[in-house]
């Protein structure tokens, strides 16, 4: 048997302390889920019953892991203890492979260590199985599309992501192209040469210029209805200032700041509303050709073929919501601040956790449950009236 160094002994002692703390944390978390108020994501196949605390007591003599989770696919996850990890954070290995904790909605990675509740949430979200539908109206085929028209059913898909999750403009473009693919509309993502732009237009960021000229720097709303031949343009008193702190790009109370919504038919744009965009022609000299990295300083330019105006925003703190609706006859891109948007997503998640069985088309809900829920909703309505 090899002799442990003093440093190794110290790390072992530190792990022993953390082993006990994290074990308790997870027990409290699971107890809250069993008894309420903690509610798991609706439809998850990872439950508190799948967690095994006992084997770590015998198998983890070095306190390197404190609980095992039997996953629905047969693999085993272990929550690991490291003396090097930030305090209050643990790791997770699946069949011995180190995992990265991915946040909901932004899809940003927290890296290999995170609080135990973040890991538990990640595991539960990773194994949500809702009914697979094989009705005649499901799918992308022509027959399915006709079936949907007949039955007045529409296909919709919404994807969310932090802009900075993508390593470069090419990755972001691939993601958007995937969401919009059924519409036949093509998005293009490029990076603004923010320094060159700031040098050319820097003079415009004076009080005089803001009041007067420099329309190319002004934010626009460009829209066209189906029955119109020419777009209508409105001007906003906000300027593209790439020298400003990206965090100041969004007003503090704005969840959504920019958006483009497009109605299309067979790949042809029929109507659009591109709000808080910038003139593509004026921007052109400052837009980098080809794929460019998305780093903390990047300003991105998103255009959709056939629609005037470019969405321009700093990549740093931005959440993107890309949607395809009405059988791809309507697509949209919403741009907001991550901090402004996440609380709204949390409200929505909470609703789905509480109301999951009611909105899940595959769940059978007894009338008695509906009676109870109706009584609760009527009471909630009465309470809103004070």
């Amino acid at each position, binding site marked *: 048997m090899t002799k442990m160094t003093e440093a190794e002994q110290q790390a072992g002692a530190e792990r022993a302390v953390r082993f006990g703390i994290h074990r308790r944390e997870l027990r409290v978390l699971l107890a809250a889920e069993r008894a309420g108020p903690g509610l798991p994501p609706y439809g998850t196949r990872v439950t508190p019953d799948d967690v095994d605390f006992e084997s770590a007591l015998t198998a983890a003599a070095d306190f390197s892991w404190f609980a095992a989770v039997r996953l629905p696919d047969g693999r085993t996850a272990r929550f690991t203890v490291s003396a090097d990890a930030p305090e209050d954070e643990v790791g997770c290995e699946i069949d011995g492979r180190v995992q990265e904790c991915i946040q909901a909605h932004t899809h940003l990675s927290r890296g290999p260590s995170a609080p135990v509740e973040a890991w538990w949430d990640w595991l539960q979200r990773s194994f949500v199985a809702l009914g697979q539908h094989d009705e005649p109206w499901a799918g992308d085929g022509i027959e399915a599309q006709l079936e949907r028209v007949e039955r*007045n059913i529409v296909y919709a898909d919404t994807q969310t992501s932090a802009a900075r999750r993508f390593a470069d403009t090419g990755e972001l473009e691939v993601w958007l192209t995937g969401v919009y693919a059924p519409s036949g509309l093509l998005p293009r993502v490029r990076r603004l040469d923010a320094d060159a732009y700031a040098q050319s237009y820097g003079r415009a960021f004076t009080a005089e210029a803001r009041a007067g000229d420099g329309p190319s720097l002004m934010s626009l709303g460009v829209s066209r209805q189906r029955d119109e031949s020419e777009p209508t343009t409105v001007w906003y008193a906000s300027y593209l200032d790439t020298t400003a702190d990206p965090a100041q790009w969004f007003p503090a109370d704005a969840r959504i700041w920019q958006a483009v919504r497009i109605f299309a038919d067979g790949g042809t744009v029929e109507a659009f509303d591109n709000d808080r965009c910038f003139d593509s022609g004026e921007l052109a000299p400052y837009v980098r050709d080809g794929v460019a990295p998305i780093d903390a300083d990047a300003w991105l330019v998103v255009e959709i073929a056939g629609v005037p105006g470019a969405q321009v925003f700093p990549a740093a703190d931005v959440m993107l919501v890309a949607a395809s609706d009405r059988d791809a006859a309507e697509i949209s891109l919403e741009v907001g601040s991550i901090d402004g948007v996440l609380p709204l*997503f949390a409200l929505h998640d909470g609703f*789905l956790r509480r*109301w999951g069985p009611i909105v899940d088309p595959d769940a059978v809900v007894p009338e008695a449950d509906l009676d109870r829920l109706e009584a609760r909703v009527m009471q909630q*309505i009465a309470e*809103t009236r004070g």
Partner: protein
Amino acid sequence: MSAATSLDGSDTDIALDGGGGPGCAWTEAVCTAAPTHFLTLPVPGGESSTALLCRRHWLASLAYRIEVTMEVHPVAFDDLVLDYGEL
């Protein structure tokens, strides 16, 4: 069931602009149940629109407005839902 939401917190669960079918007006998933309840909702411009729903989705629609919409927008329930009940 869709986990989607809109950044502005607007409701996405009821189609006000038609749908037009004889079934339940819930749009987050296919519902072929016969409507038994109604919701009368305001439409920009002062008009109103009535959606017909099955009981399940009627309850979910009311609850979404209380638990999500009203948490996001400072609006009174009676301004959000003009009328509601059984058919």
